[in-house]
């Protein structure tokens, strides 16, 4: 009886040690992959940083109207953000390669699902970037147009428009990432509708006084006031 227990214990220990030993190459491969990817990330990051610095990337970004990118960047430098993102991507890729080296069903399926998700992440990032640019452009167009039309609530209109575009963009990015699609759709509908309603109320209430004044002015206007303005621009 004691012999059988001993044998069972011996066999289980052997199995455990054998399996553990089988994992060692995987761990070593993971360690090596991480080490190499870290080294590669450092080199590539440095090259990209120098390249972007020589191109005055930070200045160009602010000139392209993407100054908000600088606000999100470490030390307010989009160059550091871009080089850091590339370095991180290399480290993540090295980690995935290392994980895949374990050659087990679990890690393989994990890597497969992560790799399959990468296009969604890239797509979401592109959607967010394009959305931010479009939001900035549209907001500026609205702001300038409204100021040139002498509208007192030009800034409100511009900010509202920017948020409408950004909310739409974020909702699209989240749907693309397949994160709580149902909730996002519902929340987007409520939020988008809410912003439009709030804007309509704000503009409506804001312009109530304007319309009243305008009507009063028209009513008080004498025939002498209706003389055409003599300014000729072109």
């Amino acid at each position, binding site marked *: 009886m004691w012999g059988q227990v001993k044998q069972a214990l011996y066999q289980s220990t052997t199995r455990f040690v054998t399996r553990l030993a089988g994992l060692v190459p995987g761990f070593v491969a993971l360690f090596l992959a991480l080490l190499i990817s870290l080294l590669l990330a450092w080199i590539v990051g440095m090259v990209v940083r120098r390249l972007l610095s020589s191109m005055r990337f930070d200045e160009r970004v602010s000139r392209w109207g993407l100054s908000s990118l600088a606000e999100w960047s470490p030390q307010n430098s989009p160059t550091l953000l871009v080089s850091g993102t590339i370095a991180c991507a290399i480290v993540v890729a090295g980690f995935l390669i290392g994980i895949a080296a374990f050659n087990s069903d679990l890690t393989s399926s994990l890597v497969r699902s992560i790799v399959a998700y990468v296009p969604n992440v890239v797509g979401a990032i592109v959607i967010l970037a394009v959305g931010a640019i479009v939001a900035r452009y549209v907001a*500026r167009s609205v702001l300038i*147009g409204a100021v040139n039309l002498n509208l007192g609530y030009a800034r409100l209109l511009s900010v509202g428009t920017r948020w409408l575009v950004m909310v739409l963009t974020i909702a699209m990015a989240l749907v693309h990432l397949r994160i709580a699609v149902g909730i996002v759709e519902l929340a987007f509908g409520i939020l988008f509708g809410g912003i439009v309603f709030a804007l309509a109320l704000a503009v409506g209430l804001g312009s109530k006084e304007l319309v009243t004044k305008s009507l009063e002015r028209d009513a008080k206007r004498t025939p002498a006031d209706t003389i055409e*303005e003599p300014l*000729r621009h*072109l």
Partner: protein
Amino acid sequence: MEADSFPQQAVQDIGQIDSADLVVGIVADLSQEDVAEVCGGLRTLPGNPRIVVLQNRLASDATPIGSAVPAQDASLSLVPWSLQNQSPPTTPVEGMLAAYQSILTIGKRLGVRGCCVIASKLEHAPSKWVCQLTEPLLEASCDFVAPSYARRKFDGLLNSGIISPLMRSLYGLRIQNPMGPDLGISQRLYQKLLDGEQNGKTGGSAMHLLASLVPLVLCGNLEVSQAYLGARNYSPSDWTTVSSLLSEILGPIFLAMERNAACWQRTRTSSPVKTLNEPVSAPQTTGTVEIDRLVHSFQLGIRDLQEIWGLVLPPASLLELRKLARVPTERFHIPDELWVRIVYDFALAHRLRTINRDHLLRSLTPLYLGWVASYARELETAEENAVEHRLERLSLAYETGKPYLVSRWRWPDRFNP
């Protein structure tokens, strides 16, 4: 502009003409009597030149062509031509200006010695001033005859406040209306213009073509003269379209600046151009300028557009503008030096593409209206000759400020706001 953009009838009529000495394009909506007067005037030109008159006719105009015009002869052909038949323009200004390209193209096809465009309704008899625009092209080997209209203080404000003094300071030619719209162009100049257009040097649109006139004259060492044509009837301005006007007109001018930078940076001073006759005075217009509304537009711009202007203007200019926004309306005044620096900074931002070019030019509107308010307040009760002095002072301010533009143009980073 290709031949297929002309109305078929006009193409056939022009096809029957072998050659001519002069093409006169009437873009303005002139009455049949005025057209008859133009033709009569052209017949008096010395040397009996062969002339083709292209008459713009509205689609709704049912009057038979030449009904009020004396019988056509070997020396003068009147060709009807409708702007409405051409490809739809994006804006009214663009639509009218597309006609310039057509006229020059027809002129080139016929190998004429000069082209003349009549784009305005003038208060004087057209028979007289059409000769003043065309005669120097045929007789005096002049390349560009620019119009000079009788000054009215509130007419052509965009030209008075920006176009004319800017071109004078850049290219050193004191031309009252460097972009016409009525003008005479020699064969040498229209060929350069059309060649430049084909090579993409003038930018493609008709407005680019007009903005390239003065740079081409200066850089090509061509002859220029100015003809006093009397008072011009300006169409009423709609204040809501000022921003579109600024964008349409200033864009090509700033682009021409960029293309001819080497040329205008060498020009240090300005000189008067040859004038062909005596200036004519005109009665001043009456009416009240709503200065308060103009100042309100400026103040609104200061409140809401500082974020954009901060990318274009240096801090000193922004500070001055902020101070101006706090000044009571009755004391509001933009100094010439500040206005000139603003225009130069916008030209530079256009070159550097600091922000979208259309946004940039449209965002100038409140500043321009602020300048108009200052100008209108100064001249509201002024005498007729005060206008000339006031605009001369502004032109001198542009010339004095030119070193600032040259420095910023050459070393934009050193002056980065």
